[in-house]
């Protein structure tokens, strides 16, 4: 068998399977044990006892997107940094420490300059910055 060693991943599949089974089992058990008597008032989305007005969706602020954007850039960069971090120790023991340090630091430095830009422009602020700039513009 050429794929003998691939089986180290088998426990992951088994744990995933157990999660699926647990979920289905819990839902089935609850289905048999619990009552089911829906009515209109019970099924109404909770809005502190009032009748719900309109759809649930409301306009969200674009800052949610900006947070997601910065996150995804960091995420991808960390993915690329992990393999280099793994061989860092080996390279140091081979005497190539400064070479790999320079590569690593230049990569991190570009990452930092990105976050520094966003910080300066106020993308990292959750509330204040936009109103601040607009007040300054109005003056």
């Amino acid at each position: 068998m050429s794929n003998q060693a691939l089986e180290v991943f088998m426990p992951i599949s088994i744990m995933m399977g157990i999660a699926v089974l647990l979920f289905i089992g819990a839902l089935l058990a609850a289905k048999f044990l619990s009552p089911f008597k829906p009515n209109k008032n019970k099924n109404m989305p909770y809005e502190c006892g009032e009748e719900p007005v309109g759809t649930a969706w409301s306009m969200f602020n674009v800052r949610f997107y900006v947070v997601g954007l910065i996150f995804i850039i960091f995420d991808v960069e960390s993915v690329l940094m992990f393999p280099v971090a793994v061989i860092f120790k080996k390279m140091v023991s081979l005497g190539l420490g400064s070479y790999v340090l320079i590569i690593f630091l230049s990569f991190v430095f570009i990452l930092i300059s990105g976050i520094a830009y966003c910080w300066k422009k106020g993308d990292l602020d959750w509330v204040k910055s936009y109103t601040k700039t607009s007040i300054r513009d109005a003056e």
Partner: protein
Amino acid sequence: MENTIGGFFLKFDFIKNAIASGSSAIGFDLTMLFYIMMFLVGAVAITALLATVGGLGTYAERKISADIQARIGPNRVGPFGILQFLADGIKMMTKEDIMPSGADKFLFYLAPFLCIFGVFSTFAVIPFSEGLQLTNLDIGIFYLIAIASLVGVGIFLGGYASNSKWSLLGGMRGAAQIISYEIPVTISIMSIVLLSGTLSFTEVINMQSGFPHNWFIFHNPFTFIGFFVLFIAGLAETNRAPFDLPEAESELVSGYHTEYTGIRFGLFALAEYIEIFVVSGVSVSLFLGGYNLPGHFLHGTLGAQPLQFAIFMGKTFFLYYVVIWIRWTFPRLRADHLMTICWKYLTPIAIFNLIGCAFWMVLFNGKSFYDLLMH
């Protein structure tokens, strides 16, 4: 295959001989069957452990909070109320499962599933003891970070599918918070990877051979800060107080699981309590020496397994206690402060730690602070 739970037990001669004689008696190789059996037994054992941990987590939470607030807490079911979690579980099973009108049925079912799935999948790599680690992947740490991010999707969908304004706000906040705090967690873990040169949990643990001065938390000043960054950010990833903005009772009713009742709410709660365990376990494994007995005492023997398991659980439950303690002591943060802490404090500190660790590796050849002091 040597790196799995089955491989660990096959190192002992009497098990090996038993399998060899069994194989010759039956006529085909039983080794593979033994591996699969060990995987199944281990997985079921860990699942049972997790259900207990999740249940006892709720009990401990109520008991400790009662202690902090000078109350008695649950004391009716069983001695000291310790069977309270069973009663809670049965109650959740027998409650009606309400689906709000206008809800997205498919996603409403899928959301708790994604949370449970993401949390349970991490346990394939968490090392409880030398033997009781289902598989020691070469990319175990990376896998754990990746698969845990499914929880964010689950929380977002839970908020979206409910067709309720509170839920949607809570879900959006929850997803934003989880993805933000994943950055400091990832970068803190990366500084440990830098020092240890591996992504496998077992090797990281074996480098911290038991005595506290060998632990990575005391390796150098940067890792000492890194541990707290990891712990605080991990706490925020579990959506618990003081970072429980997504489910803030006083502003969002109950956040993304406002509309969830019965067993599906129970699954969300179970996922949350198990996730605390995951965060504590990862912090213990990476920074606090993991399951190691002092000085590799009895390393690699069968008799050491219960001891190692006890040590790991002891350290993990200590951190679990700290998490609950923090929840009932600190007030909730404001939404903008939450993001400020993440992006303006924790992330820059984590990057600083990473650079510091890189320089430490090159300048001191990866020796720990203690080694430099002694020699």
